[in-house]
């Protein structure tokens, strides 16, 4: 029971990390019907930036928001410079561009920072606390709290502010939004900035666990895809629920299914993608695409 509870809390913590990256994917998917394969690499690069800031003596809790601001600006820059010129191209072209972007950022990070894995500080103590007889690590709780706050902030931004309203309108109804004076192209850029910042959170949260190196996010992005697909690729709430479910699944499978621990966990993530696409392609929260003919 004790171990099970710990695995559950650990699963929710890692699930929060997946949820952040999955949410980043969903934000861009909603804005332009595009899966951004570079999302994980963008998060990795942001994490290197955070480490650079911390190594220059900046305190963690200043470097963290500073990195998010930089990631936000970087996301906008990528949309303006790389994506916007080909905005009207077929989706396949865009997908290939994001794949190229992923390779580019990966190589760039390797070139600048090298491939030696680096330890990344965690602001949370490695001690545990006793909650009704279950020892839960502060790190897990900290990751859950940070992810939760970030997800809440995104929710409030999208649902409770005018900017969020115009972002949602621009994403779903670009033509109608333009006629209401919404600057659709800038809303897409904001979407990229927001996705980039939210994705950066997942990188910063996972780096203390995995060690930071240019390929750090390559397994995390698979889990994030699984989470986004499970939640229904269009639903921000689905991304969060999907993330937590995927986190729980791989943690529990790793602990209790013989032979799954370690590397095979990734196969569980891929299996989730395949099963969801076969059984319920719209995911838990997605709607079936209906098209008038």
């Amino acid at each position, binding site marked *: 029971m004790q171990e099970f509870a710990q695995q559950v809390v650990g699963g929710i913590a890692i699930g929060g990390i997946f949820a952040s990256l999955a949410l980043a994917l969903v934000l861009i998917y909603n804005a332009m019907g595009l899966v951004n394969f570079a999302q994980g690499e963008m998060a990795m690069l942001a994490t290197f930036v955070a480490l650079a800031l911390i190594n220059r003596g900046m305190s963690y809790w200043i470097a963290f928001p500073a990195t998010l601001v930089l990631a936000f600006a970087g996301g906008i820059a990528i949309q303006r410079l790389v994506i916007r010129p080909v905005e009207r191209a077929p989706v396949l072209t865009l997908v290939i561009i994001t794949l190229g972007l992923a390779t580019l950022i990966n190589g760039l990070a390797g070139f600048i920072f090298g491939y030696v894995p680096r330890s990344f500080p965690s602001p949370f103590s490695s001690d545990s606390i006793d909650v009704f007889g279950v020892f839960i690590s502060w790190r897990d709780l900290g990751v859950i709290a940070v992810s939760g706050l970030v997800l809440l902030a995104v929710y409030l931004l999208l649902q409770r502010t*005018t900017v969020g*309203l*115009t972002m*949602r*309108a621009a994403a*779903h*109804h670009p*033509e*109608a*939004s*333009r*006629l*209401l*004076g*919404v*600057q*659709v192209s800038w809303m897409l850029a904001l979407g990229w900035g927001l996705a980039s910042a939210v994705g950066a959170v997942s990188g910063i949260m996972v780096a203390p666990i995995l060690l930071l190196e240019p390929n750090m996010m390559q397994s995390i992005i698979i889990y994030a895809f699984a989470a986004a697909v499970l939640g229904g690729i269009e639903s921000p709430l689905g991304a969060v629920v999907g993330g937590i479910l995927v986190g729980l699944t791989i943690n529990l499978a790793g602990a209790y299914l013989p032979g799954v621990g370690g590397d095979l966990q990734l196969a569980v993530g891929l299996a989730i993608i395949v099963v969801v696409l076969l059984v319920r392609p719209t995911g838990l929260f997605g709607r079936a695409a209906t098209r008038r003919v």
Partner: protein
Amino acid sequence: MSGGILELKDVHAGYGQRAVLHGVSLSVPEGGIVSLLGANGAGKTTTLRAITAGVRWSGDILFAGRSLRRMGTEEVVRSGIAHVPEGRGICTELTVDENLRLGSHLRRDSAEVKKDYDRVFDYFPVLKARRRLSASTLSGGEQQMLAIARAVLMRPKLMLLDEPSLGLAPLVVRAIFEIIRTINETSRVAVLLVEQNARIALDISSTAYVLEVGRVAVSGESAQLRGDESVRRSYLGY
């Protein structure tokens, strides 16, 4: 023919290689209602789309004396034109209230905005009752009401309405046109109305233009056109 809030001068427009408008000139006086009639494919919708930069055009379009050449859709709209497009342009992913807020989102005069909300809820009480519901749950007539209410909340100087009667029951059509007239009278907003339903459009407008394959075939005072048997037969089909 000059000095109107909206002036189209020899406007040509089309989609790619296919030209749709072959030199349309028309004028909407300040605070007036003008109807643009004609058969399917005559270029009525394209004319409206040209005004709000939804299609490439040449010639000149002046709004409040200023040329709209080289302006993007957002810019044209922000200068004071509300365009209720073909199909109404309702954001069905959003609630009724969110759709209305999109109408007023650029305005900073919050006291006036509040008054305008009261006004549109007065015109269309059904929208107030359904504020929190998804706009996709509204009937066709209610969606048209929402689209017009949203346009009013933009506080435009000119409204472009693309077939507000389309697909609606006659009673609903009459109610909506009554309110278009009220909006025009109380807030002095000019209206350019595209309609297939020539009879009701001629009733509400002071001036009318009839398009035929991308050109103005007939124009004049609505009352006159309504009384002209040959125009009615050859162009308006009633």
